[in-house]
């Protein structure tokens, strides 16, 4: 009986302590990245390269997804709005949903699976093939040379990608609402302009995506750096990056939204 209890506790406790230890390592790693960041900002070419790989190469998937999400929003929103005779507010609905919520969140989820996983795999493979150790032996700090530029590349790319997602989504909403369903173009845009507040809506969305950018980039570089230096180790770390990022994005989104909630 006692044995069963002890077993139960250790089975719950072991993953828990492992998780907490890992969280501790991640925090220390975050501080190390910040401490070694000057190199990636002074030699900005290093970071530019990562913005290219993480950001620019993600533009296509972000743009296409944003367009479709906006079009679906318009179709669904129209159905509901038309029942209340408020179909001219479709532009407002689409814009607010995207700017405040879907742009940052869906953009970050896509970013995590497109760029985050690639960053983890790249750093993990560099570790497995001793490239990071070789760098250390050449007296070059891999956190400064490899990790920090990728981290900042992700942090810089994320809000820009989220903005592109929202912009494409609004364009998609315009295509469906105005071009397909025949809403009045003037009221579509002017209502949107009147109802969307720059600071409360747009800026809050940007703040969200900045948080997500830090979270996803940190998870991606940490999982890569922490991966066991084997093939299974790297593939496991890549999966963990996507899963952990998704959970962290959604949890963070709830917390941030609660803080930004106005209650009107």
């Amino acid at each position, binding site marked *: 009986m006692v044995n069963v209890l002890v077993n139960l506790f250790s089975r719950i406790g072991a993953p828990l302590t492992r998780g907490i230890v890992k969280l501790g390592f991640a925090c220390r790693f975050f501080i190390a990245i910040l401490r070694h960041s000057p190199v990636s900002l002074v030699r900005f070419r290093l970071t530019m390269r990562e913005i290219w790989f993480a950001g620019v190469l993600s533009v296509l998937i972000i743009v296409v997804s944003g367009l479709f999400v906006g079009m679906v929003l318009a179709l669904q929103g129209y159905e509901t709005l038309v029942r209340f005779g408020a179909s001219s507010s479709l532009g407002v609905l689409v814009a607010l949903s995207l700017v405040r919520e879907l742009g940052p969140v869906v953009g970050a989820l896509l970013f995590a699976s497109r760029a985050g996983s690639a960053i983890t795999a790249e750093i993990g493979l560099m570790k497995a*093939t001793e490239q990071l*150790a070789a760098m250390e032996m050449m007296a070059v700090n891999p956190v400064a040379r490899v990790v920090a530029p990728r981290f900042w590349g992700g942090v810089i790319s994320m809000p820009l990608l989220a903005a592109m997602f929202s912009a494409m989504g609004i364009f998609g909403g315009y295509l469906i609402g105005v071009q397909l369903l025949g809403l009045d173009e003037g009221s579509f845009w002017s209502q949107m302009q009147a109802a969307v507040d720059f600071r409360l809506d747009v800026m809050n969305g940007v703040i969200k995506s900045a948080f997500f950018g830090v979270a996803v980039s940190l998870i991606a570089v940490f999982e890569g750096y922490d991966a066991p230096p084997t093939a299974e180790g790297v593939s496991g770390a890549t999966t963990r990056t996507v899963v952990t990022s998704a959970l962290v994005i959604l949890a963070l989104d709830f917390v941030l939204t609660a803080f930004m909630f106005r209650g009107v």
Partner: protein
Amino acid sequence: MTFVMSAPLVEFRNVSFAYEEEIVLRDVSLTVARGQVVAIMGGSGSGKTTLLKLIGGQIRPDSGEVLVDGENVGNLGERDLYRLRRKLGMLFQFGALFTDLSVFDNVAFPLRERTNLPESMIRDLVLMKLQAVGLRGAARLMPAELSGGMARRVALARAIALDPRVMLYDEPFTGLDPISLATTGKLIRELNDALGTASIVVTHDVAESLALVDYIYFLADGVVVAQGSPDEVRASEHPFVRQFINAEPDGPVPFHKPAAPYAADLGLEAANG
């Protein structure tokens, strides 16, 4: 070539090291002088790579001292450690070339990161180093386009880019065809004599090492079990040395990993009883 036998460039004084519970090195002492090529021989998992990591300060000894050019590596802070590593060149087991950089940029990497030389001078230096390993013609290739032996020679050019005083080689012969193997061995010796470095070659290739090196340490289970010049090693009666250089499957290093009695494992005992 004669060198003044001054203070050794690398010295281990009664060094012990353990990963968590597993003891890897026990009371290891060795010295490597300028101009010397020294081999560390031992089976897989005997702690050879660990020994090189101690020299580079990637790990610190639990007890004892590791001295590189007179400095105690275990006591250095991060800044001093990075300064010390500039005197070290290391060839990793499979080269560890940066896969996203060309051969030229790989060799230029330490020069660009650690010096302020103008790009024109870096170019000349890189081509000189590549010429030294016979691969100037491969400067524009990517690492994925190289054979194993070529990759290791490029890595060698990269390791000597900053003219190190101590060269470390981790199993430089593993997985090479006989010609590449002989080429690599010849390069190690030539570079050592030309640059006046001290070289430590971790290996289990007996024939190549005996022809190449000045002194040999045998490592088994983290202990130095035998040492000597190549001639002394060939004449040695030490059972471990004999097993190693004659490649005998059984001896002081047992063929069987310790286990429960075979019959018991197969369940025969129970059937009989």
